[in-house]
């Protein structure tokens, strides 16, 4: 449970989870929409995987991430977002993802 709290305490990781609620996404798609460097993003994915909040499938060189939240974890995510622990980082413009 400590790992879950640690994972949800960071606004970037919460943003990743919010994006994954729409649909499963590849690491590239997520990198396009979150304003952090790729190594930092990899570290965030590692924390989320360790807390068992996301699942990943590797097909060739593409890693697809899928949300893996229980009801209580999702409620906790909503609570952390509503309370605003930390400050959410802005989502990048979708123009870049369209050109990619």
């Amino acid at each position, binding site marked *: 449970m400590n790992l879950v709290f640690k994972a949800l305490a960071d606004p970037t990781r919460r943003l990743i989870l919010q994006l994954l609620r729409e649909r499963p996404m590849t690491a590239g798609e997520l990198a396009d929409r979150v304003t952090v460097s790729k190594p930092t993003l990899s570290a965030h994915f590692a924390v989320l995987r360790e807390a068992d909040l996301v*699942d990943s499938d590797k097909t060739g060189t593409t890693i697809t991430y899928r*949300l893996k939240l229980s*009801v*209580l*974890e*999702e409620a906790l995510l909503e609570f952390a977002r509503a309370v605003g622990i930390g400050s959410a980082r802005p989502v990048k413009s979708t123009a870049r993802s369209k050109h990619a």
Partner: protein
Amino acid sequence: MLDRKAKLTVLAFLLLMLASAIWLVGYTGRWSAIPFFLPACVTFVVGVWQWRLARAEGDLSAWTRWGGFLAISYAAICAGFQLMLVMRVLKLTAFPPSSFARVFLAFFGVQLFVLGNWMAKLPPLRAWRPASLSLDAAGEAAMLRFGGWLLVAYALIVIASALFVPASLIAPLISSMSLASLIVVFIKRRQLHKSQLHKTWIPR
């Protein structure tokens, strides 16, 4: 399918319940199907689960664990209720029967809460469904999350009913809620199926 440990545990609970049912019939000296109702329920639930999972494909380890918890907890709750009936017949407890039912229902609600919370985390189950209700992996994942939330809400109402609702209203409330939940699940699945068709439809 259930793992060996779950199968043996459920079997032990079933044998215990059947033995107590036979003993109850022998002790009271008149035939009644009521003591056999709970063992029949456990056999039905576990049988349906086994049948469903035997026809599924892919990695089923998470579903096996979930099903194991479902089968063991359900069998344990039913065995506990049966044991309370035996104690009541032997006059070992002065606990009124209506309180038995409330305790049973509250435990059942807690079990559903755990199952619903866990269900949202499970990977999509690749098993046969009618074509009009089939979904792709993303749709199945969305359905599981929705089902998890619904089951948790249902469980909270079951627990609240067991604790606070007058005895005469519990059965109609739970029955109507169960029916409403089934209808909501059907509508949600149809909705997801239609949105999936809409996404994959390519105009000529």
